[in-house]
């Protein structure tokens, strides 16, 4: 493990001027306990994790359980990436981002504007509108987007710090349904591409990195795995493997075999 770790340490990820040695972003949703979340963060080596905003339970008063999420994340030493999950309009997403800036003292936001309840696919016009307004207000915007290279380019052109195309619908575990589009997005924008959503297992994140993604965001695939900590370790290794492979220069695909052992000097019996 030490060799791959040192390789990535020399190969940092930079988003909006913030440099990270890990190319794995972790979502905090779905972990059965805060202890498991803390252990998974450590195992993933992630330095940037998402957090959501929801109503304080009025009936129950200020819940200590919720408050301690912040403590766990602070103890883990990670930076927070607030999201606007659950927002269906640009207006809701903008207000949520503004509240997140107040709550977490960061102007970073993972912008999600959902357009469909069944697939949780992004609503492209609302997403662009929200991104434009938040950028005007000085936010560092990382939009969750479809795997459409044109939309990704529009978001990057507006000034988004990265684009986060989906591999497949959130929580579906279907992996990368359109690898071709993901590689086109990598060509289409100059900002980091962070594959987001749809990851099911470690080979999915490896493929993402091989396709040229700069980082991968994983939530459910880790938090809802039977052993989240082991899966966090697997995802970390998968990201490293894919990154190394993408830089190593793979061999071209061929229709027929190419002998790896030379014909020259072959004995005749």
């Amino acid at each position, binding site marked *: 493990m030490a060799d791959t770790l040192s390789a990535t340490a020399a190969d940092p990820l930079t988003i909006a001027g913030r440099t990270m040695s890990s190319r794995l972003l972790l*979502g*905090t*949703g*779905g*972990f059965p306990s805060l202890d498991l*979340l803390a252990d998974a963060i450590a195992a993933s080596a992630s330095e940037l994790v*998402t*957090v*959501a*905003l*929801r*109503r*304080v339970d*009025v009936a129950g*008063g*200020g*819940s200590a359980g*919720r*408050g301690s*999420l*912040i403590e766990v*994340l*602070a103890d883990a030493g990670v930076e927070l*990436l607030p*999201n606007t*999950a659950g927002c269906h309009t640009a*207006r809701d997403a903008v*207000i949520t981002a*503004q*509240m*997140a800036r*107040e*709550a*977490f003292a960061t102007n970073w936001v*993972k912008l*999600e504007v959902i357009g469909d309840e069944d697939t949780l696919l992004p609503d492209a016009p609302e997403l662009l509108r929200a991104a434009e307004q938040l950028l005007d207000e000085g936010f560092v915007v990382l939009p969750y987007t479809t795997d459409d290279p044109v939309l990704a380019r529009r978001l990057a052109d507006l000034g988004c710090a990265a684009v986060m195309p989906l591999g497949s619908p959130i929580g579906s575990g279907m992996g990368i349904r359109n690898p071709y589009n993901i590689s086109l997005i990598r060509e289409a924008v100059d900002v980091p591409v962070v594959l987001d959503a749809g990851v099911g297992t470690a080979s999915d994140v490896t493929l993402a990195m091989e396709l040229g993604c700069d980082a991968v965001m994983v*939530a459910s695939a880790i938090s809802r795995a039977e052993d989240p900590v082991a899966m966090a370790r697997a995802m970390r290794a998968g990201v490293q493997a894919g990154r190394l492979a993408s830089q190593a220069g793979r061999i071209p695909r061929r229709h027929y075999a190419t002998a790896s052992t030379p014909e020259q000097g072959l004995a005749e019996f």
Partner: protein
Amino acid sequence: MIVLNGEPADVPAGETVAAVIARLGLSAEARGVAVAVDGEVVPRGGWDSYALPEDARVEVLTAMQGG
């Protein structure tokens, strides 16, 4: 009637945001808490002075696992 997190609340108009935060058992220094009144964010520095108008819709949000 003031509506707090979607529920009618026994909070008189004129009460400050800081007082509502205290009612919820939260400390004014609590990390990960944000407040909006009628769709506008109330910055933490304004909690003490912001008096809730009649029929204010107040949202008090906090950190939750997600994403």
